[in-house]
């Protein structure tokens, strides 16, 4: 028998961008909610050691870069002086403000917040080891696992303060003279750019033939061009074979395209993240975990254990905050008995480097691999008035369209400053089932970078105002 929604007690384990929205939404739907996380306030990786601190630092980095470019406009500024303690404090203040706000919202919703770590004793019971050392036992009508993910470490890396992961890199202990970035994914490149802007000589090593493997090559090219100038070196198709601590730093041996050895002050390992499914006592439940460590869930994010749901990084790719949030809302509604499902047509991915790279939906390569006949139109930002006023004509906007279906928008990609903000229009277009004409005949404000979306759509119809092919 279905119990009354209002008397359901739900427990959310993990207070990240998956867990806290799930808890908030469940409370808003009238359920009685307990939220458990080991931090004093909700926020998870995203707010404490992920999206938010990295973006705060990137904001500072972008300013430093702009300051160096403004000379071309006839404005000379002296080399920025960096007060690392103040920068760190500012970043901490941003975190404190946002997580404190979430704590307030938790209280306002009358959610019970337990600071501690939860483990399933059996499929119906949780044991919580509270941060003050006491233990609590909880039962529930439904539980949501939102325990997120952890950085992957290199097995052969020495245990040394010179070897950083994304968390310790965000601590900003110092600005090393030289730094090796292991892994050319988005987390590494963002942090690498922060350190490069602050003055480190940054070298990147990546196994794959390109940075940001999986992203549209035409977009990556735009970022790579910039990074080539900012970074000391970019070694592609190269692997780190050994890391050894020496008095001078970490000696690195490379294998592959770039053979050889070199010593760096610090190493930042950013080779990926693994789902954190191992610490919740799943062995005491029927929850199934796949070979990659993700919890297996159905379309409503329900695990093999009917009363247990899983969302966010622990429940599968893409490991992104906004995907976790969407899943959190789906799980809360599913528990409330609503017919919601996980049904996104496009999930935007953004690399917050300078220039930014953002995309959603299908890439050209994916569409071709799926045997789809697609038409791709590009609008180079060199033809955008706004980009020129910003001194940034290196960007590009690309649309992947289905020529057999009214040029329906299948994918959108962009590179350039502000791409992360602009991509929202692309995501909306795909979710709404828009066709190129819808974008072409929507008035976009002038002069803005958003016009590039309109013009890319126009060029699909063969008539872009500012660009001829």
């Amino acid at each position, binding site marked *: 028998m279905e119990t009354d929604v209002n008397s359901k007690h739900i427990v959310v384990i993990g207070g990240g961008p998956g867990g806290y929205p799930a808890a908030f939404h469940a409370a808003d739907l009238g359920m009685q909610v307990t939220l458990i996380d080991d931090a004093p306030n909700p926020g998870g990786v995203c707010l404490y050691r992920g999206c938010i601190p990295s973006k705060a630092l990137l904001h500072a980095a972008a300013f430093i870069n702009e300051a160096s470019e403004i000379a071309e406009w006839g404005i000379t500024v002296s080399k920025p002086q960096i007060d690392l303690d103040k920068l760190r404090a500012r970043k901490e203040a941003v975190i404190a403000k946002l997580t404190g706000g979430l704590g307030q919202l938790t209280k306002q919703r009358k959610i019970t917040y337990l600071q501690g770590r939860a483990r399933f004793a059996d499929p119906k019971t949780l044991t919580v080891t509270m941060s003050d050392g006491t233990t609590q036992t909880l039962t529930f009508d439904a539980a949501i696992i939102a325990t997120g993910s952890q950085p992957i470490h*290199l097995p*052969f890396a020495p245990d040394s303060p010179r070897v950083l992961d994304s968390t310790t890199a965000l601590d900003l202990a110092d600005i090393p003279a030289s730094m090796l970035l292991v*892994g050319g994914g988005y987390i590494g490149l963002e942090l690498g750019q922060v350190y490069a802007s602050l003055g480190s000589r940054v070298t990147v090593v990546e196994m794959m033939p390109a940075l940001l493997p999986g992203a549209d090559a035409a977009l990556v090219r735009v970022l790579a061009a910039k990074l080539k100038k900012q970074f000391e070196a970019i070694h592609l198709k190269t*692997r780190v074979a050994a890391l050894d601590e020496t008095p001078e730093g970490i000696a690195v041996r490379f294998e592959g395209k770039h053979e050889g050895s070199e010593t760096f002050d610090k190493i930042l390992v950013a080779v990926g993240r693994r789902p954190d499914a191992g610490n919740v006592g799943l062995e005491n439940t029927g929850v199934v975990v796949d070979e990659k460590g993700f919890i*297996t869930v159905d379309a409503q994010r329900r695990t093999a254990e009917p009363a247990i749901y899983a969302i966010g990084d622990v429940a599968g*790719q893409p490991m992104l905050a906004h995907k976790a949030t969407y899943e959190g809302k789906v799980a809360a509604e599913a528990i409330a008995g609503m017919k919601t499902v996980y049904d996104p*047509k496009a999930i935007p991915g953004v690399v917050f480097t300078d220039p930014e790279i953002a995309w959603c939906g299908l890439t050209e390569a994916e569409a071709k691999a799926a045997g789809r006949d697609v038409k791709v139109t590009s609008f180079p930002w060199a033809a955008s008035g706004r980009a020129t006023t910003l001194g940034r004509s290196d960007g590009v906007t690309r649309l992947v369209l289905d020529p057999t279906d009214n040029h329906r928008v299948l994918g959108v990609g962009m590179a350039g400053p502000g791409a992360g903000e602009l991509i929202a229009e692309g995501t909306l277009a795909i979710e709404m*089932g828009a066709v190129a004409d819808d974008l072409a005949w929507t008035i976009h404000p002038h002069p803005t970078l958003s016009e590039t979306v309109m013009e890319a759509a126009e060029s699909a119809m063969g008539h872009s105002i500012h660009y001829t092919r």
Partner: protein
Amino acid sequence: MSTEFKLPELGENIETIQVTRVLVSPGDSVVADQPLLEVETDKATIEVPADNAGTVDSVLVSDGDEVSVGQVMLTFTDSAAAPTAAPTAETEPEPAPDPVPPTSDIRHPTSSLLPPPSSPSPAPPTSDLRLPTSSPSPTPYNVPAAPSVRRFAREIGIDVTVVTGSGPNGRISIDDVKTHAKQRNEAPALVAAGSIATPPLPDFEKWGAVERKKMAVIRRKTAEHMSLSWGQVPHVTIFDKADITELDVLRKRYADHAVEAGGKLTMAVMVCKVVAAALKRFPQFNASIDMGTREIIYKQYVNLGVAVSTERGLVVPVIHNADQKNMVAISVEISALAQKARDGKIQLDDLEGGTFTVTNLGRICGTYFTPIINYPEVAILGIGRAQPEAIVRDGQIEMRTMLPLSLSFDHRLIDGSDGARFLGWIIDAIQEPLLLSLQG
């Protein structure tokens, strides 16, 4: 060991497929995930992969065959002791992954950090889950419907992919979904009967004069409802006679009791009482089927519908909790409801919530007929005209009053033998009125 390879669940609402190509032959050895067959659903062509490695023993289907979910298509000799089923709750959860990747694989996690640029990749691995209950499924990638429209359609149980969009380039709006839902309700028979569209009518005037009259609402509703039932429900009807000689004696003896109370103790009333008791003993007949969730809904109440013909047409008022009422009470209620129905004063409440219907043609004529089930109920009992008959009892010919009974039931839920047992119990209870008090 030889194992059977059955057509797996391929998606919601896919019950049968057509084999377009068999990709393996007996003696072939296959690896897990290797495509075995190419099949076609009404939506797409799909390759059905092997779930384990093994050697094909025999191929039981060929190109063009129609196959339903669960049907055995191939048999295999399994190599090794590969697990045969998807992980279930009993499976030991995998230990947490090794926190460190193998050195040769540094690139992999890096690339997996990137968001797959579209939803198809993170699609939930629904298929290898033992689903506790049915769960709505995500819509395919390129349906031109906004999230709000998809959500609305899901809520009211409409598959948005079959809705025709009225907007530019086929865009589907909330109104389109509503229109679709309305049309579906108005033409249930068409949807149900596998969408064979009604062919256009001939021009009857070619053969003489005709008159066209608007159908009364009640006629139209009956037409729709009967088509729905006929289209959805595989009917079986069985016939038998009950010897009511004794019961009729009792009926006459106690008729006054009912009259005093304002009712009329008819044979139909007595049969209703027996049926109500039978439904308590045979809950299967007091149920409904939910094909959407593949569940059977057993109702914990017995509400008997009694078909009443009125000038305007057929209505079926309901005697709520008939099992808790005695014959006099039932007779009073039937009389009152029938009167209300004939006066056109019947309320919606009086017509709703039935769990089983009794229909009586006995006052007019006829022996047997094939009553159509009042969907979503699963059975209906038809009463014919009682007649004195020459019956052989204990080797002697005797004159007995016999009542013809026709029971239609939904073969999806009820098998022939269950139907016979149910009708048999009713007949026994009619013939031996005491049985009702003993067992009913």
